[in-house]
Every structure is written in structure tokens, then in C-alpha cells.
């Protein structure tokens, strides 16, 4: 089984995959509990515009995607402050992103195939530059979540009390949405734009079915995402399948098992 690790591209895929797994699953716990599960999907479509823009103007696509997604995330936050409903704010930017992406692709007529690897993800796609970029951003994100763990936990549980307790709630909300944008951008290379949100939502939802405390939930989600990523990448290598698809299928399997376990437990308690 270990022969696949002889290939540099697989080593890079595993390192990138592991980092992304941790980042997405941890951020995902906060998002799912705050009923913001769909923001990952929205931001991924916005990132699509960033990728297309980068290719069109000859900028490193992950960088242009990062800039565009982070700015849009802040824009969504601003729109919410201006009394636009949160889901509507996401939908507005989502359409805007897709529209830009589609327009640029149609005008260029050339980079369709490259863009494909971003839409569906690819283990072959992660090059040295990508790995450095992904690694730096993931490290920064994990460090920030660790540093602000207790504050993020508090605002997720009860924003009003957190505010009364003197926490900078607005600043923390902005940080969380920016970190979400980063999680989306770093994940695209491996799992693809179309599946990023499942990477954010599934490990968290699975962990929530079986965990007790908050810290447990975070650790469990990260562990689940990590294991699923290793299994998914391995399967993708041997079956010559898309990595994102394989990983997400494993994650769905884990969720289904946890759900069955949860329902059985519930039945037992009812008896």
C-alpha cells in the first residue's frame, strides 16, 4: 500500500489533505453550530470567480481566489449589518461570483481544462507552490483558532452573553468568516470547488451526533476528517478517481454510520 507514497505528488496530496482536513473540520464545527453551513458553498462559488480572474489576468490563481473570497466574505458581513438577511447576502455574492467566473471563461476561450481541476479537485494538481501556500494559510488558521478558541466557543454558544461579558463579538465574527474564506480557498485544490462545503459540514455534523462536550466535538471532527482524507486519497489513487469525490464519499459513509448509531441509541433510551 505504501508504494503510492514514493510519488512526490502523493506525498504532497497527503500533507495538503491532512492540513485541509483539520482546518475545514474545525471551522466547520463553529459554522454548523451557528447555522452557517451554507456559507462554505457560497464562498466556494465566489472563489471560482477568483480562480477564473487569476487565470485571465495571469495572477497565481490561489492568491487571486484568496483575495477575492476574503473581500467577499467581508462584503457579506457588511451586507448583513445593513439589514440584508444573512442567507440573502450569501446568495447575492454567490451569484456575483459565478457570473464573473462564467463571463471570464467565455471571454478567454482557453483555460477550461485547468479550471476543471479546481472545480473537481485533483491529487495531481498540488504543486510545490500550492503546498507552501496551503501550508502557510492552514498553519495561520489553526493558530488563530487555537488562540481564540474560548472566545469563538462563547460567541457560538451565546452571542448576547459574550457581548455582555465584554468580548469583541463583531471582530470575532469577522475573523471567523475570514477564516472560512481561507478554509475554502485552501481546500479547492484537493477536493474541488463543488465539494468544499461538504468538507466543512460533514465532519462537524458527524461529530455532533456522537460527542458530549465542545472540545470533544472539535477533536472528533478533526480526527474524522483526517482519517477520511487518508482513506479517500488512497482510494482515489488506486481507483484513479477524483480525490474530492472519494473523500466526500467516505465522509458521507461516516456520517451515515454515526446517524445509525445515534438513532439506535435513541431507540434504546425510549424502551
Amino acid at each position, binding site marked *: 500500500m505504501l508504494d503510492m507514497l514514493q510519488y512526490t505528488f502523493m506525498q504532497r496530496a497527503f500533507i495538503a489533505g491532512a492540513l485541509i482536513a483539520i482546518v475545514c473540520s474545525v471551522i466547520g464545527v463553529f459554522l454548523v*453550530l451557528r447555522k452557517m453551513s451554507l456559507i462554505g458553498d457560497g464562498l466556494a462559488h465566489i472563489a471560482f470567480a477568483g480562480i477564473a480572474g487569476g487565470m485571465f489576468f495571469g495572477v497565481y490563481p490561489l492568491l487571486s481566489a484568496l483575495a477575492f473570497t476574503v473581500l467577499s466574505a467581508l462584503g457579506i458581513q457588511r451586507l448583513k449589518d445593513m439589514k440584508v438577511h444573512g442567507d440573502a447576502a450569501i446568495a447575492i455574492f454567490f451569484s456575483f461570483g459565478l457570473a464573473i467566473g462564467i463571463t471570464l471563461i467565455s471571454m478567454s476561450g482557453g483555460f477550461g481544462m485547468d479550471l476543471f481541476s479546481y472545480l473537481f479537485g485533483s491529487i495531481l494538481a498540488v504543486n510545490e507552490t500550492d503546498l507552501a501556500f496551503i501550508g502557510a494559510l492552514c498553519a495561520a488558521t489553526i493558530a488563530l483558532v487555537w488562540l481564540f*478558541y*474560548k472566545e469563538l*466557543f462563547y460567541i457560538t454558544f451565546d452571542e448576547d452573553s*459574550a457581548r455582555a461579558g465584554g*468580548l469583541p463579538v463583531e471582530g470575532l465574527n469577522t475573523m471567523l468568516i475570514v477564516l472560512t474564506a481561507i478554509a475554502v480557498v485552501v481546500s479547492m485544490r484537493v477536493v474541488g470547488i463543488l465539494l468544499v462545503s461538504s468538507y466543512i459540514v460533514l465532519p462537524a455534523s458527524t461529530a455532533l451526533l456522537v460527542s*458530549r*462536550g*465542545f472540545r470533544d466535538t472539535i477533536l472528533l471532527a478533526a480526527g474524522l476528517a483526517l482519517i477520511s482524507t487518508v482513506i479517500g486519497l488512497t482510494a482515489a489513487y488506486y481507483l484513479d478517481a477524483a480525490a474530492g469525490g472519494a473523500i466526500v464519499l467516505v465522509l458521507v459513509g461516516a456520517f451515515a454510520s454515526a446517524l445509525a448509531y445515534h438513532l439506535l441509541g435513541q431507540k434504546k433510551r425510549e424502551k
Partner: protein
Amino acid sequence: MIGAWNMNAANKTIVLLRDVTFSYGAHIVLENAGLEVKKGDFLGIIGPNGAGKTTLVRLMLGLLRPDRGIVQLFGSPATSADARAGVGYVPQKATSFDQHFPATVSEVVGMGRIQRAGLLKQLGQADRDAIEKALEEVGMAEYGKMRVSELSGGQQQRVFIARALAAEPKLLILDEPTVGVDHHAQAKFYSILKRLNRAGMAIVLISHDVGVVSSHVNKLACVNRSVVIHDVSKGVERADLVCAYSEGMKVVKHENAGCTGHCHGKEV
């Protein structure tokens, strides 16, 4: 934790509101409201729905700024972080949180330590001790590892009081804390508050349940756009007579009401 409060500041003013006016747009919620909470006070805030009770508390917590007037906590503006650090707050919806939220009792009480610990710092041994002590204070010490959502309404309410206590406050503010809690749990709840109050903690309790509140507090604030304070430490027979606060409510036995001379609302 209560002993930490300086005992020689016997008459120290903890909350001070003077000539406070607050409005949401054109709608005036409070007008020229004033009140004072001193060390050892147990203030009940009563009034009909929409009278401005919660607004009053949000002003005290520094979450809202008045259009006019002064709101001070411990002699500093209520909006300053220092002032807020001395306040423990149990919000109105404390027990109606997301019941699927994964959090243990200890984790929830630990939220009360977050501001004290400061940004970028992890909770340490002193914080864990304070969490345990706060749980003991409300009789929930053995529930630390349980998931909050598995507890009864009354138990959850005590956990939220413990969360406020974990901050080692000098003032405890509770907004309609007994909504959805059964009678037995309410009795326990009031006995905890009474004990804390006797140990020197100032308490502000918002409630619509006039009858119950007035038998525990020493001051009653009747809120209905204005604020009228009554000293009820010597006992009141019928608290609903103290403040004729609800529209159309009639005070029948005014002579027993203990509010002679300065009762607002409709008098008969």
C-alpha cells in the same frame, strides 16, 4: 468568591442611573429614569411587557448607550470594560439555547472566566478552581462532565447562574430567569440568590412575577417608561399594589400599598 468584595465599602454605589432617556428611533422606551443599587441591595425590576425592563438592564450592562443621562457601574461608565468585569449576567434566554449544542456543564461555566483570563490566554488551574467553586455554590458540583442539554430546565438555570458567578462578580443581573422553570426549582433558585445576597452580592432581578419577587427583594423598581423605586425591605402585603403598572390596572387598596405619595400609573 463573594468575600473578595471589599467589605469596608459598605455604602458604595454599584449601579447608578441618572436622568436616563433611551429611544429606539422615535419610540421612547425610557424617559428620565433613575435608580441606584448599593452593595447588598436586592433590586427587583418589574413592569409590563414592553415597559423597558430589558432595555434598562442592557443599559446597565453597557450594551446600549443612553440618548441622555448617566449610566455608571462601580463609578465608571457602564460601557467601560473595567466596569463590566464586575458584573455577572444571566440572560433572558439562558435556558432556551440550542438544545443540541455540544457543551459540558464545566465548559459552559468556564465561559464566565473568559473575560477575566483575557484574550489569547488559555484557561488555567485558577479558572478550573473557580468553575468548580461556582458549581458548588449552586449545588451542581457533580454535574461538571454532563452535557448541558441533558439537564432539566431548573438545573440548566443553575448552571447559567454558576457561569455568571465564575466571573466572581460584585453584581449579579438576571433577566426573567424563572421563565419555563417549575415551582420547586424556582424555590431553590431564590434560596441560592438569597444566600449570595446575604454574603454581600448585589442582585438585580427582572421579573414579571411581581408577587414572588417582592417577597425576596429589598428594593422594587417599577418600570413603565419611567422608573419608580420603592423600599420594600420592611415588607409589602401585596406587591401588585406597589406599582399600578399595567394599563387599566386598578389599585383598590391603596392604603396598604406602601407607595403613598409617589406611585406612578393609574391610581384610584
